[in-house]
């Protein structure tokens, strides 16, 4: 059951994809019911699997492989692996996917490529599920790329818009850069261990084998594979694609760019966690921290509702990565799960708002007002009650207010970073953690307030707003419910006592002892000692952030503009996304383009020139092809060939047409040959 069922779950969305891509337009309702039904079925199976696994075989790992191809004497195997991590992910993916499918029925109703959209959703779900259940790096990489391509297709769904197709390409290429690292990491491991399977790799490392006999390469391998996560989970410095990816339909953002695909990086790190050395983990932690901080600061300054959420996502992903880096494995993974729920909810909520705005604007034939700019909104609370209340719950959850799921996971992460700093002295990590917690609360409430509270800038627009249809609000409600604490732990202030912590345990490190991070036991001891402190601090900071937001935007005690002015360069930096895009454009992108042009020039002039050989031959070419040039060309050719009375050139004089001159040369050659000949 633990092998067949996951396979079925995996294949259901693929079936949907194939059916819809070929027959989508011929099916009634363009097949949305088919796609949704299939994914729902997958969800049901996943849920069943989760329950069965957690309750009856919690500690076991089910694995199955088959030989994909034989290369030389090597068997390259493919297979899958079901453990608690993967069953939880299965449920998360299928659930969010199901809800997004449902939501899209409303949201994408009038789209020209409706069936194509659902097909791509199916492709995405299939690939994502593949990442979840695979048991080896190669297949992981395969699905990794496939989610990349489905993400590309979905971001570029409205490809008539230049910005959309740009964003799609950008997302894919930036991801490729990360995947480049991952690929090299995989190569290192494969070349060393001749296998792609996690299990076998770990066994080999545990047995003391190291890639190229070097601990440095082991660390490098870990970091390189993590590069994949950097790309996919939009970690600094490869985070630039995610905000742009908001060009895709909002449900897609919810599914791919908030809940599942971007979390794949976190999942990957969790998968390879045992083989990461302390050095690698530290780098991971810092990358996460930096990402969290940068994204949070940017989020404060954004006005596009989806952009705010996008940066928030990056920030939260940074959190998760940081958590894994410091060793708070379970907390990090749990944040993935909880975040999936509330961030998907936030996006769908935003989608609901945008849908409503768009409808009004469309009805008014207004194509200038930006349906996504929060400055054009305000006071939507009464118009869209369902959306508002669910949105509020999500906001609370992400801000880490107690009684929400977000509080549980975030609190554990903060405690983890604190514990880490007590163990290793890296105090910057908890500091960033807490600052970001405060920033998160602030910008999320800013968003909430500006969107739903206060006065709209244009009353007439808001007047026409209507609540979205049920098919869109029901997913919101489901997700809102899932953002509450009791799904994860009966204790609202402590996640450790819940089933989740029991089910997902931090695996043992298998790297050589000297390279290991602090052991789980040591770590948890430290965590428990700082837990209370962390919790109190986090609550204070979260509430502080909320209050701050309220005082600026709700009560207008503090002027946002003045604050921005005071922050000066910091504000400008943040509002311009710390110029990451610009820097990349000016350096890497421009550099590459320059290089390509240089290469092209080089190729068309230098290489062609040199390879074409002696100048004579080259000129002969052009002469033959054009038959026109007679200056340099003829000079050279004549030098070797002949032409009457060209001074200085023996050969060109030779065939002068005068027989006596010929004879002079004959006799001369005779003498020359004689001199050469006699010497020999």
């Amino acid at each position, binding site marked *: 059951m633990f092998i067949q069922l996951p396979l079925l779950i995996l294949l259901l969305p693929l079936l949907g994809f194939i059916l819809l891509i070929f027959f989508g337009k011929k099916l009634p309702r363009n097949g949305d019911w088919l796609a949704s039904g299939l994914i729902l079925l997958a969800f049901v199976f996943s849920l069943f699997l989760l329950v069965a696994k957690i309750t009856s075989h919690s500690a076991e790992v089910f694995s199955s492989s088959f030989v994909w191809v034989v290369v030389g004497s090597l068997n390259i195997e493919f297979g899958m692996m079901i453990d608690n991590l993967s069953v939880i992910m299965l449920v998360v993916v299928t659930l969010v996917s199901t809800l997004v499918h449902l939501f899209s029925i409303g949201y994408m109703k009038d789209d020209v490529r409706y069936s194509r959209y659902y097909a791509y959703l199916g492709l995405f779900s299939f690939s994502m599920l593949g990442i979840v259940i695979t048991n080896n790096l190669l297949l992981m990489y395969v699905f990794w790329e496939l989610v990349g391509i489905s993400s590309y297709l979905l971001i570029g769904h409205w490809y008539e818009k230049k910005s959309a197709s740009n964003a799609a390409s950008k997302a894919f290429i930036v991801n490729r850069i990360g995947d480049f690292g991952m690929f090299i990491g995989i190569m290192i491991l494969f070349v060393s261990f001749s296998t792609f399977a996690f299990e076998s790799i770990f066994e080999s490392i545990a047995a003391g084998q190291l890639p190229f006999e070097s601990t440095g390469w082991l660390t490098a391998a870990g970091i390189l594979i993590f590069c994949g996560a950097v790309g996919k989970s939009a970690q600094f410095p490869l985070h630039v694609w995610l905000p742009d990816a908001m060009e895709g339909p909002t449900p897609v953002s919810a599914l791919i760019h908030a809940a599942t695909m971007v979390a794949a990086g976190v999942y990957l790190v969790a998968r390879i966690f045992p083989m990461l050395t302390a050095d690698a983990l530290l780098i991971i932690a810092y990358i996460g921290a930096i990402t969290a901080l940068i994204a949070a600061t940017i989020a404060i300054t954004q006005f596009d509702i989806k952009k705010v959420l996008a940066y928030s996502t990056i920030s939260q992903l940074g959190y998760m990565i940081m958590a894994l880096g410091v060793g708070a494995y379970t907390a990090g993974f749990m944040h993935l799960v909880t975040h999936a729920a509330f961030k998907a909810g936030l996006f769908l909520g935003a989608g609901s708002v945008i849908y409503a705005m768009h409808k009004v604007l469309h009805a008014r034939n207004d194509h200038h007002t930006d349906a996504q700019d929060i400055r054009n909104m305000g006071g939507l609370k009464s118009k869209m009650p369902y959306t508002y209340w669910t949105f509020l719950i999500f906001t609370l959850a992400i801000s880490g207010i107690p009684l929400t799921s977000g509080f549980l996971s975030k609190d554990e992460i903060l405690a983890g970073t604190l514990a880490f700093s007590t163990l290793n002295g890296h105090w910057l990590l908890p500091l960033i953690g807490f600052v970001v917690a405060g920033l998160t609360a602030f910008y999320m409430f800013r968003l909430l307030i500006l969107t739903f509270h206060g006065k709209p800038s244009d009353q007439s627009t808001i007047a026409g707003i209507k609540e979205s249809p049920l098919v869109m609000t029901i997913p919101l409600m489901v997700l809102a419910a899932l953002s509450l604490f009791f799904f994860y732990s009966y204790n609202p202030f402590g996640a450790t006592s819940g089933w989740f912590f029991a089910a997902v345990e931090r695996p043992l490190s298998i790297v050589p002892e000297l390279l290991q991070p602090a052991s789980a036991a040591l770590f948890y001891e430290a965590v428990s000692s700082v837990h209370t402190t962390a919790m109190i601090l986090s609550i204070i900071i979260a509430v502080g952030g909320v209050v701050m937001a309220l005082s600026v935007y709700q009560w207008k005690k503090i002027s946002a503009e003045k604050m921005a002015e005071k922050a000066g360069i910091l504000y400008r930096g943040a509002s311009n996304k710390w110029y990451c895009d610009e820097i990349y454009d000016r350096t890497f992108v421009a550099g590459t383009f320059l290089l390509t042009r240089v290469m092209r020039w080089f190729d068309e002039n230098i290489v062609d020139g040199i390879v074409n050989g002696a100048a004579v031959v080259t000129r002969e070419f052009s002469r033959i092809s054009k038959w026109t040039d007679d200056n340099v060309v003829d000079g050279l050719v004549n030098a070797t060939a*002949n*032409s*009457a009375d060209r001074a200085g050139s023996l050969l060109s004089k030779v*065939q*002068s*047409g*005068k*027989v*006596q001159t010929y*004879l*002079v040369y004959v*006799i001369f050659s005779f003498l020359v040959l004689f001199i050469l000949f006699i010497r020999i």
Partner: protein
Amino acid sequence: MEYSIMEWLSDPGLVHFLIVSAMLFSLGLMAVLSQRNVIMVLMGVELILNSANINFIAFSRFTELSLDGHMIALFVIIIAAAEAAVALAIVLNVYNRFKTINLDEISTMKG
């Protein structure tokens, strides 16, 4: 055995004849290479052939070649005559076409 120059000079042998032939050869060559007039060139050719003939006859007398040298020389004389006849016929024909027998003016084909 030591020869003085005078002794050498006073006893004309093979080498003396050969030297005469060499001088004749180079004079013939000179005519061939430098005279513009075709007929002068042909006269030069005759000189060259004659110089070769002197060689043959000289060898015939001074080495073991015996009468073979005479024989060859005889044939060379005949061939020289034949060649001269054909050459002059061609020259006449060229003269009819070009109205000149200056070799360097007869060069429409070159390159």
